[in-house]
């Protein structure tokens, strides 16, 4: 198996940075899931698609816009009407879905190479993300597991909250390095560590 090249590589500097002398309040990393798949149901077929997601991943999606969950290995969330993003540490998710998501249910689009997943965690994660995105990151407004589609100017992002102070941000691969640099820059104020 040929390893995938990360778009962040030359700018991915493991260690502590910024104003970290008083402690690091942000952890940044690239989660590098083996698979990122977009699933989209035809109108009225959303429940079947959710069942298919459960079949393949074992994750039972909650109802409702932007609902999602993560088991630490696999994660799934809704990002648009009838549409879901599923990520898995393992490769081959698209092929697995292709078997169960029949053409009458909806479509499967493999984005494993096309999206880069960046994880931001720590007590200042909400603070740093709020520098970029005009959505409310407070826990009551953005519960754990939920997903949001939003954008920072030209950079489209899907964000899933995977912990009380942890978020996974999916961005287009071609923008990933620029966004990563911006995220690091914005984290300097509170001190951050790249892992």
């Amino acid at each position, binding site marked *: 198996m040929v390893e995938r090249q990360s778009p962040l590589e030359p700018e991915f500097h493991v260690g502590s940075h910024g104003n970290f002398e008083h402690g690091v309040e942000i952890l940044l990393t690239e989660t590098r899931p083996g698979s990122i798949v977009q699933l989209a149901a035809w109108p009225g077929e*959303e429940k079947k698609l959710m069942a298919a997601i459960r079949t393949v991943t074992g994750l039972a999606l909650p109802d409702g*816009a932007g609902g999602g969950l993560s088991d630490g290995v696999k994660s799934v969330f809704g*990002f648009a009407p009838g549409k879901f993003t599923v990520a898995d540490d393992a490769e081959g998710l698209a092929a697995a879905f292709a078997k169960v998501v029949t053409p009458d249910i909806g479509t499967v689009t493999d984005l494993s190479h096309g999206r880069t997943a960046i994880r931001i965690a720590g007590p200042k994660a909400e603070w740093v993300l709020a520098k970029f995105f*005009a959505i409310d990151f407070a826990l009551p407004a953005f519960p754990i597991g939920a997903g949001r*589609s939003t954008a920072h100017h030209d950079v489209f992002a899907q964000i899933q909250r995977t912990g009380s102070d942890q978020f996974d941000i999916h961005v287009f691969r071609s923008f990933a390095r620029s966004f990563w640099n911006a995220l690091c820059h914005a984290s300097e104020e509170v001190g951050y560590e790249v892992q």
Partner: protein
Amino acid sequence: MLITCPYCGPRDVIEFTYQGDGNRERPDPASQNFEAWNAYVYDRLNPAGDHNEIWQHSGGCRAHLRVVRNTLTHEISSVAFVRGDHASAARRKAEGQS
């Protein structure tokens, strides 16, 4: 200005793309009624008051929304998916709206 996307909740106007007058009707594709085609492509209702318009939540879920917005005050009185078959996907009231 905020538009309350039925899926994503209230979002800043920066996330949306304006697609204009929502009253325009596209003629049947095979129609040879050029008056109707011209009206569809070029003529706009431009009211000072409530305006029925289309927006795309291009920086979010990318759904197209039918919005009634007052052009004098920017007050938005209704937002709905253009696609009726998306209605079931609308965010439920009980959920935390961002």
